[in-house]
C-alpha cells in the first residue's frame, strides 16, 4: 500500500474515525493497563516497607 500523502494516510479513505478510533482505543488500553499493574505492585511494596519500618521502631 503506497499512500499519496500524509493527509491521505490519516484520512483512511474516509474511515478515519473508525480505523483510528479502533487502533487508538487499543493503544490507550495498552498504556493504561500496564501502568495500573505496575502501580499496584509499587503500592503494595510501599505499604509493606512502611509496615516494616513501623515494626522496627
Amino acid at each position: 500500500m503506497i499512500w499519496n500523502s500524509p493527509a491521505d494516510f490519516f484520512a483512511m479513505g474516509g474511515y478515519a474515525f473508525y480505523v483510528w478510533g479502533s487502533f487508538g482505543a487499543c493503544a490507550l488500553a495498552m498504556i493504561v493497563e500496564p501502568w495500573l499493574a505496575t502501580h499496584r505492585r509499587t503500592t503494595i511494596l510501599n505499604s509493606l516497607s512502611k509496615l516494616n519500618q513501623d515494626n522496627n521502631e
Partner: protein
Amino acid sequence: MNNRLINWFRYASPQSFYPLAGRMIPWFWAFTAVFGLIGLWISFFAAPTDATQGEGYRIIFVHVPTSWMSMFIYLIMAFWAGLGLALNARLSGMMAQALAPTGALMAFLSLLTGALWGKPMWGAWWVWDARLTSELILFFLYIGFIALQAAIDDPRRADKAGAILALVGVVNIPIIYFSVKWWNTLHQGASVSLTKAPAMAQTMLWGMLIMALFFWMYTIAVALTRVRAIILERESHTEWVKEEVRL
C-alpha cells in the same frame, strides 16, 4: 523420586515464581515491541486496500486478535482456576486472578472495535446477533469472575468460588467460536480456519497473525506484572516477602 519432577514443581511456589516472573517480564515487553512494530507496519503499509471495504477493513488487525485473545485468555484462566481447585495450589489461583482483568479488557476491545467496524459496514453499532451476544456474555463472565473474587475476603475461598464460575463459563467459548456456523448471523464467518485455506490475501493474513502474537506477548507481560503484585499482596505475612521488601 527423581530430579526432573522436582525441577518442574519448583516454580509452582509463589516464592520461586516471583523472581522468575521478574526476569521474564522485560523479554516479553521486548517481543511485544518487535511484533507490534512489524504488525503495525503490515497493517498500514504492506497490506493492500480491500476491494469491497476500502481502508475501513484495517480494523481487522486489532479486532480479530483482541477477539481471539478474549477467548484464549478465558481458556487459560479457567485452566489455572481448575488446576488450583484440583491441586489446591496457591499460585494457580493467583494466575487466574491476574489474567481476568486483561481478558475483560480484550473482550471489551473486541466489542468496541467491532462496533466501530459494524457502523460503517453494516450501518449499526450493535445488533443482537449470536456472535456479538455471546462475546458480550464472555465480557460479563470476566466481570462476574472479578466481582465474585472481590466480594470474598478469604483469598483461598475466593479462588475456589471463582474457579467454579470460570469452569462453568467455559461452555460459552465454543458457542462464540461456532456461533457464525450454527446460526444465521450478520457477522461474517471465520477469517482463518484449520480445515480450509484462508479466504484472504497472504499479506492480510500475516498481518493478523503477527498482530495476534503482539497481543499474546503483551498479555503475558502484563499478566506477569500483575501476578507479581498479587503474590506480594497475598504472601505479605511470609518471611520471604519481608526479606524482599527489605532489599
